[in-house]
């Protein structure tokens, strides 16, 4: 996770198979603009260019698909340029749920916790990523927790961190609670077969 970020490492990350919707990169842009303004965004784009990925965020199409490696590279570049820690990366994930166009289109299906966990979560994943499968393993509304599992996707650990915030954000949209937590309990980068997230609320 603390691997040095350079053109070579980026090139390796970019070799990952699969694509991701432009909206995820757009929400990165939104967060940078909110936190660091236009100047910050320019710095980020310069860094990406240095890393061999000359991206103009404004030109990214929300609904178009981009290489999945770019999802990780964008976050890594943000982390490097602005010196963000993992908590801040989680915050980007949380922010994404509140500004993402796809989420706005999807909220029509956020009718109950049960439905979101059991039916919509896999669909929502598929709307964003062309690889990986998201499933709910367990949901206990009484005890206020749920476990979701993500298989067949190994981009970079920073994406795992981002997704912690992202899942937390989704829960905010369906559960009235000020204390919601999401934690990756299993990870392929830690030797597990899949990624697993424990979602809890009070």
């Amino acid at each position, binding site marked *: 996770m603390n691997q040095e970020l350079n053109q070579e490492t980026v090139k390796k990350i970019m070799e990952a198979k699969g694509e991701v919707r432009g909206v995820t990169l757009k929400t990165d842009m939104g967060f940078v603009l909110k936190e660091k303004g236009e100047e910050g965004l320019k710095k980020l784009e310069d860094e990406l260019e240095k890393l061999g990925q000359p991206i103009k965020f404004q030109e990214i199409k*929300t609904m178009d698909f981009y290489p999945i490696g770019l999802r990780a590279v964008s976050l890594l570049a943000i982390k490097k340029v602005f010196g963000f820690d993992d908590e801040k990366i989680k915050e980007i994930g949380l922010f994404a749920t509140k500004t993402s166009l796809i989420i*706005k289109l999807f909220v029509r299906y*956020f*009718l109950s916790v049960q439905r979101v966990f059991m039916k919509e979560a896999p669909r929502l994943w598929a709307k964003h990523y062309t690889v990986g499968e998201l499933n709910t393993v367990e949901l206990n509304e009484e005890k206020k927790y749920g476990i979701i599992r993500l298989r067949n996707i190994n981009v970079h650990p920073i994406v795992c961190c981002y997704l912690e915030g992202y899942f937390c*954000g989704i829960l*905010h949209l369906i559960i009235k609670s000020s204390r919601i937590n999401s934690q990756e309990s299993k990870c392929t980068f830690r030797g597990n077969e899949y990624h697993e997230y424990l979602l809890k609320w009070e």
Partner: protein
Amino acid sequence: MTTKKEEEKISTLLEDLTSLESYARDLFSFLPLPVCLVSSVGIILEVNPAFENITGYNIEEIIGKPAEDILVKKEFEELAKETLGKGYVRAKELIIFTKEKKEIPASVSTILRKSEEGEIIGYFVGLFDLSDIKKTEKDLKSAQIALLNMLEDVEEARGRAEEEKNKTVAIINNFTDGLLVFDPENKLSLINPQTEKIFDIKQRDIVNRTLQELKTFPTIEPLVLILLKETKEISRKEIQLKENLVIEISSVPILKGEEKLGNLIIIHDVSREKLIEKMKTEFVSISAHQLRTPLSAIKWTIRMLLDGDLGELTLEQRDFLEKTYRSNEKMISLINSLLDVTRIEEGRYLYKPALTEIEPICQFVIKSYEEEIKRKNITVDFKKPEKRLPKIMMDVEKIKLAIQNLLDNAVRYTPPGGKVTITLKYGKKEVGFSIKDSGVGIPKEQQSRVFTRFFRGANVMRMDTEGSGFGLYIVKNIIEAHGGKVWFESEEGKGATFYFNLPTKEEFAEFLKEF
């Protein structure tokens, strides 16, 4: 595998989708009305910038927040229930709470949002900030209350003013004196019934007329002529309007602070007083005449006895008769003074003016008092200018009487060994006379009454029981009848100085023109 045609189609669709997204975003962002989307469980899912502005929350703070955090819980529950039940709510007034816990009155409208399958997704909530309207309403209400209060005050003040006006009108109408009120432009603005009666004139005929216009009304003309002539205040000036109608007029300015609002003319009918005064004067005159005849007879009889025409008298008899003769003389003198006063009051104190020098008159009078002066060992100093004084128009007998009265007082009330100084001066337009004594003086509190009838100083009454109290009254009338002026200066115990001026011939002629 997709064909090239399908790829182009997907690409076009993506572009359209992006444009649509941009359009929807711009529309939502541009909307000045605060709008949010609330899920069916009451969570805020989307807000526009206007909503961020009104609540003070930014987008990531507000999205995912329960709507009841910004609305009163009970009110929100009712709103949600009504929306979910009816499908919409129109312009319901609620209070919204900002991030800073500030309360904002707002009009809230909602509309239900359903999926294609008919499932309730949530509802849009639109707010309209009523703060300005409420403030305006409050201001208007305050202004309305203030206006009503003012109106009440004005009405009350108007009532009081009306009441005051009615009182004033009642006072004016019932006033026993005639009243005329002139405005600052000297237009007659008001008269009372008494004035109508005195001048035999109707208010409607003369109000709103200037003094010049009023001159054309014969009955009021004598008054108008005086008002036109006098620019200052008038104090108790008499006018005889008819044979039995004498009025006394006074004029006072009506002032409000420094501002002059007009003039008030007070007409006091003194006809009755004048008639009584006349009858009294006539009575005194007749009585005095009747008294003087026997007194004259007594005088000549005693004179004959004293002269020995009826035989020799013993010393004792002579002594008695001389005392009786002196007392009789005093009585005659008093009767003469009374007659002078009655003539003055009847306006019959006519005199015969002739161009005369005053100096010989003074010398004559001083000489006539030589014996008394000598007896009291009083020094009399007579000062006159080196240059000869001009002759002035005067009634010699009357001026002699005036000087005599003044000298008589000076000698009478100056203690033995005292000094009397008589001075003649020549001014520009008059000849001045003064007589200064080292006598008892006049008490300050009595000085205002010195020239009135029967006045006698309290201090002199204690030391001398003689004196009629007519002397200075006669002096004043004589001098003023000559167009002159008389006055005095005195301090009790330090003597007194009496002055009079008589006008020169030219000034006297001017004075006569007034009659």
